[in-house]
């Protein structure tokens, strides 16, 4: 066992530090980079698929969308006006709360 201890002591020269933030950071940076690339590839694929499907279906979708949009136009305008009013009133209240208005 003395021989084994001797070998172990000599092998200990090769031992990296128990904690090496530089190494761990390099690994994790590469992991995140690859994950990002996978996400980008996935999103690109989904977008391309969606675009192709829309292009293929557009001739049949277009008449339906025109009809729907004509029917919904008043409701959309009313909704947009309501949202604009809320945003304006909320903005003024916020200004008052912040003391920007006298």
């Amino acid at each position, binding site marked *: 066992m003395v*021989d084994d201890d001797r070998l172990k002591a000599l092998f200990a020269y090769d031992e990296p530090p128990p904690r090496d933030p530089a190494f*761990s950071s390099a690994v994790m940076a590469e*992991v995140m980079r690859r994950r990002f690339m996978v996400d980008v590839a996935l999103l690109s694929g989904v977008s391309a698929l969606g675009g192709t499907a829309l292009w293929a279906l557009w001739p049949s979708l277009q008449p339906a969308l025109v009809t729907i949009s004509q029917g919904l136009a008043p409701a959309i305008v009313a909704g947009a006006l309501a949202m604009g009013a809320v945003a304006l009133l909320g903005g003024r209240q916020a200004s008052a709360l912040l003391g920007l208005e006298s």
Partner: protein
Amino acid sequence: MSPAGLDEALVAAAQAGSTDAFSRLVERHQQAVRAFLRRACGDWAQADDLAQETFLAAWSRIGRLKAGASVRAWLCGIGYNKHLTARRSGVRDRIRDESYEADRETACGPHAADKMALEAAMGELPEEQRACVALCLAADFSHSEAADALGLPLGTVKSHVTRGRARLLQALGGPDGR
């Protein structure tokens, strides 16, 4: 929590997609993997490159790791395969002795000669034997854990360790391990 229990929890979290958990696994096992690869390939810079590739491969394969399996043996197994692939492909064809001299800190002190003799003897061991010695004698792997990591039969690992130990001790001028 025991180290094995903590590993298991971290693996489960990493399998669920947690990069934080995987980062902790890297921190916990980088020393073992890098030390093994340094001893297996003898080139510190290449060993660190291979260790990085090992962890990247581990991240993409973490879903395949079975519950309760030894993480360090699994990682060393991936690292060993990376090392063998690199050697076969010749992409990282560097001369071992040259890189030993260039990359590592020069061993000094009373054991410098022994260390150099050990390095030379390790370099002369056959690939599998060197890997078995690196795991079982230098890193306290059990024979069965090393067999799992290297994908070798248990008897072969035992025999490699015994022969490798004898050759190393012989090179160090001591008894041959019998």
